[in-house]
């Protein structure tokens, strides 16, 4: 009973050649066995580890009782998006990190159970309360905007989401690959909102197609969840060579534009690829590159594997698939051939020095340890900064020096009636933190609307 039920997956040697989902989900038997490991401790520490406070022991109890629909109803009280969160949350740092079972043995596989319930329950969309006559605009249809829209629509608000791309979901659509989060699931989750009469306008860039001042006139409140969309580059020589992508571009071409299938949007099929970075986005980019039939895919990260911010499961899956991890290594410059095409990346080895401001030991270069990796494609997965289109067009909104919108603990911005959350307020973070912010904003907006 100390070990969890293992999640079945596609064989690594098979899955590295397809974009189908890697983790296959628990069977009912698996789920009931795993659920029966829950100790149902009174204090429910797991709930406090969940950014949207799902009543975890309660829904696990219903799995034990083989009442999946009731388990789903309990999850839906807090979050409509169990199918997404069960797949992409870093549970090992959240609910599962607090699980008492984890002290001696493995924590309950809460994420796997959430996914099982949400995939298998009959869909029950809550009936919204009577229309309250209040109109709310939401900027961005990513996880934060979707979560906020759900809570507001349930309470009877008329909600309109403005999305800049042609498809909904934000990072769920363009960032996270099909093999980790099938796009049909994103479609299903968005359709639940449409069933609650949420109006979604695609191809509308707030700050370009329509301005904040116009939204202020048309709506009683606004939630800005426009995300951290701007890619970072290192500023090293050779970064503009052909074959150098930001992870955003590489993943957008693959996930949003489907360039791995018959699509007019091209993608470079590289022989050898170097991905720079250690987060989930780096893992996603590397594993996509592998699925485009690259021979060798390297992940270059300047700290050690212990410091990698990626989810453990993604690191594990990437290693199983044969991604080559080059830890304590940092790029120095990218080398090009006569045709302006990448032909290699020069790196230097690092060692860990004293802890920095983030508490992580900071990497220091080892002089003279330079070497060249023979690659024809480099993908920079260095994180993203807030997209400045909205804030530039609306300077009245207070931002901090990195361009994030300043909010208080209620997600309220410097302007009355305007709330913000998700990556545009925090800088790049996780899907579930963005959803948590969306829910908190919804509750603050509902309070605000009582008096406005």
């Amino acid at each position: 009973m100390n070990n969890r039920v293992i999640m079945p997956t596609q064989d690594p040697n098979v899955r590295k050649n397809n974009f189908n989902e890697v983790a296959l989900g628990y069977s009912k038997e698996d789920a009931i066995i795993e659920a029966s490991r829950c100790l149902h401790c009174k204090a429910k520490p797991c709930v406090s580890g969940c950014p949207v406070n799902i009543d975890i022991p309660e829904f696990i109890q219903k799995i034990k009782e083989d009442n999946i629909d009731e388990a789903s109803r309990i999850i839906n009280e807090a979050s409509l998006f169990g199918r997404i969160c069960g797949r992409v949350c870093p549970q090992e740092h959240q609910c599962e990190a607090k699980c008492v079972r984890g002290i001696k043995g493995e924590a309950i596989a809460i994420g796997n159970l959430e996914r099982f319930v949400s995939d298998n329950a009959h869909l029950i969309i809550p009936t919204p309360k009577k229309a309250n006559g209040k109109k709310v605009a939401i900027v961005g249809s990513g996880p934060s905007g979707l979560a906020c829209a759900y809570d507001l629509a349930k309470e009877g608000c008329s909600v309109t989401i403005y999305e800049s791309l042609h498809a909904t979901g934000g990072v769920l659509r363009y960032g996270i690959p099909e093999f980790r989060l099938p796009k049909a699931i994103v479609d299903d989750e968005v359709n639940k909102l449409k069933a609650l009469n949420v109006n979604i306008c695609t191809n509308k860039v707030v700050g370009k197609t329509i301005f904040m001042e116009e939204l202020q006139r048309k709506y009683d409140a606004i939630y800005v969840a426009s995300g951290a969309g701007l890619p970072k580059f290192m500023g090293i020589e050779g970064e503009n060579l052909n074959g150098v992508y930001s992870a955003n571009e590489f993943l957008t071409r693959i996930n949003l534009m489907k360039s791995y299938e018959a699509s007019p949007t091209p993608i470079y099929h590289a022989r050898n690829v170097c991905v720079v970075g250690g987060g989930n986005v780096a893992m996603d980019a590397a594993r996509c590159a592998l699925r485009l039939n690259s021979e060798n895919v390297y992940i270059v990260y300047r700290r050690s594997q212990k410091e990698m911010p990626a989810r453990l499961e993604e690191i594990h899956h990437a290693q199983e698939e044969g991604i080559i991890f080059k830890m304590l290594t940092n790029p120095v410059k990218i080398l090009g051939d006569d045709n302006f095409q990448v032909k290699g990346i020069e790196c230097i080895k690092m060692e860990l020095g004293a802890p920095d401001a983030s508490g992580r030991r900071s990497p220091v270069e080892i002089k003279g340890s330079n070497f060249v990796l023979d690659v024809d494609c480099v993908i920079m997965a260095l994180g993203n900064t807030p997209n400045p289109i909205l804030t530039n067009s609306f300077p009245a909104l207070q931002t901090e020096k990195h361009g994030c919108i300043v909010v208080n603990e209620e997600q309220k911005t410097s302007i009355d009636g305007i709330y913000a959350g998700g990556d545009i307020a925090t800088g790049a973070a996780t899907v579930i933190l963005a959803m948590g912010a969306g829910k908190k904003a919804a509750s603050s907006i509902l309070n605000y609307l009582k008096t406005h």
Partner: protein
Amino acid sequence: MTKIIRKEALNDSIIRITISDQDIACHAKPGQFAILRVNSNGERIPLTIHNVNGNDVSFIYQIVGRSTYELSKLEVGDDIEDVCGPLGKPTEIDGVKKAIVIGGGAGSAIAYPIAKALKDKGADVTSILGFRNKDLIILEKEFSDVSKLYITTDDGSYGVHGLVTNVLKDLIEKDDYDSVYAIGPLIMMKYVALTTKDKNVKTIVSMNPIMVDGTGMCGGCRVSVDGKIRFACVDGPDFDGHKVDFDETIKRNNFYKAFEREDYDNVKHNCNLFKEVK
């Protein structure tokens, strides 16, 4: 979905289409562009907004590959899957009293709203349009209405025999201008910038790198300006022509050429097969 309400061929490969879109029409300024997807599998293609009249928004494009070819197959009453705009920064025209506007080929379509806006603001506008030959000339009347117009052709079949830079050199030798605006092939804009550099005439070029989202998200459209990375979609598309690394963008724009050529040939071939079956 956005309906095509007007369509006209300006020459064998250049087409003007008009759609009705209140949001774009209300907010678009000269120099801005939109992203279009022709169909549900379509790629995102940036097209500069040519003209706005009431709620009508028009684009002029040249058939250069699969997506513009597929767009050219849509007729009045047909739907374009997605149109998103206006994007990018508007062209800076405030305070300009005397300007030269240069358009190369289909780039003339993008140059037109700038010439018109300058004229509307009371500036003295001279235009130079360059084409390969007489048959490819577009917008002659439109430009004549808002500016003093020179047309050059590579083969001398109309107007001045030679390149736009020949006329430009003469003009800036004889007179002082506040600004030169150049829109067209990268190689043309490069030589325009080189021509104006000696006399240090402010030169604004409209860059057309490969682009995906058009909202700053992908960084694929990065250009080197004064040695720094700038994104054409959000920082541009206009940049100081004397600071742009044209050679780099020319090489970057070649990245997918082989794929695009093959893809275009396949689509044209399939389309012809389809015609035979019918």
